């Protein structure tokens, strides 16, 4: 497992099955694209589950949401699972409104997200939702 900050973080190492990516305080187009790049890199390196932590996130705009949806899309196609953790109440409502909560696991914090996704990653032949 490796933990990555969205943007400016050390390169992802190969072989980790579950990765945590940290969103910044404002998820907009630019920071969303950083998250996306990081997530895609992890997936390309064989990661089977991604936790995106919103612990520092105050706001997510609709462009950010659309990019997150793209990440979920790609992850799904590659048989990987995505969890969102530490999401503020307001952002949860936004995600609910835009239908994201149907597509990801929502976890209270990273620990819970990791343990949920580890189970998934260990499960043989698991994929899809």
């Amino acid at each position, binding site marked *: 497992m490796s933990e990555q900050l969205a943007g400016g973080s050390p390169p992802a190492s190969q072989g980790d099955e579950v990765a945590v990516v940290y969103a910044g305080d404002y998820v907009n187009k630019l920071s969303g694209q950083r998250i996306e790049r990081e997530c895609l890199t992890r997936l390309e390196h064989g990661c089977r589950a991604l936790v995106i932590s919103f612990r520092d996130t105050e706001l997510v705009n609709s462009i950010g949401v659309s990019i997150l949806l793209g990440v979920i899309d790609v992850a799904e196609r590659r048989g990987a699972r995505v969890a969102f953790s530490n999401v503020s109440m*307001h952002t949860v409502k936004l995600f609910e409104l835009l*239908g994201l909560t149907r597509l990801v696991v929502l976890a209270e914090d990273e620990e819970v997200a990791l343990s949920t996704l580890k189970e998934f990653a260990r499960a043989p032949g698991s994929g899809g939702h």
Partner: protein
Amino acid sequence: MPPKSPRPRRIIAHAPPESFVGRAEPLREITGLASPKAGRQGVILLAAPRSGASELLRQSFDELFRQRGGAAPVYFAFTRDDAASTAAARRFLHTFLTQTIAHRRDDSALVSASPTLRALLELAAPSDYEWVERLIQSFERAADEGDERALVRLCFGAPQQAAARGVRTVVMLDDVHVAESLRGEVALGHAVADAAAESGAPFVLAGLRRRMLDLVSGAAQHAGLDSLRKLHLDRLKETDARALLEGLAERYGVPVSEETRDLAVQQLEARPYLLNSVVEAAVASGSSLNSFRDFQSLYVDELLGGRVGRRFGAVLAELAPSPPLRRNLLRVMHESASVAGGKSPVEVWMKRLGADVVEFERMMRLAHVHELASFHATFVETTPGPVWRDFLNASYRLQVAVEPRALVVADTLVEMLKRAPRTMARHYRREAALNLGGLMSRFNTEEIPASLLHYDRFARMYRGVVREEVQSGLETETDSVRLPQIVHAASCASFHPPMLQFCDEERCAVAHGLEGGGYAEAEDVVWIAAEVESKLEAGRALTELWLDRLEQVAASCGFGRVRLWLVSREGFTAEAAELLSEREAYGSCREQLELLSARLGLAGEGVENGPADEFAIELPMGEDTELVAAHTVEQIARRMEFQPEDINKIKHALIEACINASEHSLSTERKIYNRFRVEGDKLVITVSSRGLSAPTAAPENGFSPDKNGSDAGAKGRRGWGLKLIRTLMDDVEFERVDDGTRLRMTKYLRK
């Protein structure tokens, strides 16, 4: 977005209904006359010059005309072009029949046509044929007989004839003050008033207020009119005047800046006629109203040769038909206006004009009616209206001093430009004034904590204390002051004009009242209050200067018992407070004044200017600048005590609105304009940007993400902004304006 209803058609109104602002109440009153419940009521419309009364009546006509099946509206304006009362009467009959038949046929084109009476008869509905024919025959007979009285009575009695046949009309007679100046053996003003009062149908008599007042309750009083509803029409409220100017500018495609708009409203006294004139002049000359210079150029042109100048010129020509007399009148008026206070004895005017008593009285009465001067029994006072004064100055130089026109134009333009910042500064000062006169006028023997009138005590007890604690402290104070019962309050300058040298009119007030006991045993008292300008606590010397000034006012005016009260925003130094105490004067700071105002139930009525209610920021597009807007609105929403959840919603909606503005406008200036307005229990946010609206790359989206195919999915994931905003806010209006887009969002406060 609901489908737009078609624009109501204009018939005789000059402005489209949506551009007619600030007159909703009188419009409702006049159109309400058509209701069968209104019976045969009449309305007297007392209009200040250039207040837009004619347009109000024309708008009323259009609105009533559009209400099919109701009473038929009839609009008729007296004009000097008729020359004789019989001509006006004939024209009235023709207008009455044309407009009534047009309404009953629902044929608005007929209103502006001029069919002969016989042609009108052919157009009349079968149910109207008989009474219209009888009326026309009676008219032709009276005209043949040459009986002027009978003709006038018959023509103005037409509404009565129609009412007798069950045809309901609302007759609106405009410029009634002109009627009496028409030649003929019939006093037309009275004949019209008689006919209206006896018509059995609702009617409106409109005209210049000073003459209409005479007609209703003055020298020319008419018995049937004094009990009627009276509507007063004066200048617009400043907000309405700004909206009017903006609307006109938009309609005619005249670029206007906010600064110039505000100057125009101030300089043109928020008068609809003048605002219209300047915009129309801008259209005619292809000018803009983007700068003070643009506006002042148009204004000077209007004064010296445009519609405004011609209108004043026509009134002057009516007052003094012969050129020598007119020149004399200009000279006397100009010189009188230059005297402080603008007042001169009647004898001086008469002598200088060289007119006999009859001619002088006629002239002065007309000047009074047109509000160019106030004519009283013993003196004449030139009206201080700035536009009239500007016209007077320029006309005096051109026609009396015979200066070259180019020089007068140049000087006037330079003077106007120099005056513009002063005009605006004066406006800002007036807006910022504490309205001491208004506050004192509400005194009614209340007992208030003494600390509210003694700054030293207040500072000792409450300085640095939060407002809630101050209020609780005031409740427990035992030392109190009983306020007088104020019966009259006015500016100090209206008692003692020299005070204008020292302060703006609204910053010093005199209030007459009674102290103690019932009316019989109460003692007269005069409170003189002044707002002292000082950025810090006012010092002893300044305080002494003001106390001396106010005592001088009291002495000059012969006031007996006097109470002086000084108000300085930041209060007074210890030495100044000591002086106030020695001279038994009161002294308060702004906070004391606000607390006093709140105790008298006047919070928000001028004395307390209240918290700032509008904030505006301009953001460059891009670089996450929407966060700046979000943080700003967060502060405002917190001040309003919105719940944290709602604050998040507001921030988010604003972010989406800013993104929307950035993404969907082909703006060359790349700016987003945000306005946050606190309106009672709601926060109204306006986000606008200039530029063309770009075609949206993605269709408006539903909330379910589309995950079929990458490209379609990517497109499907965008375009949520507006829908999100609608979910997050309570009211959302999105509109494309001529030069960009505007989004208005409202969130209501729920505690």
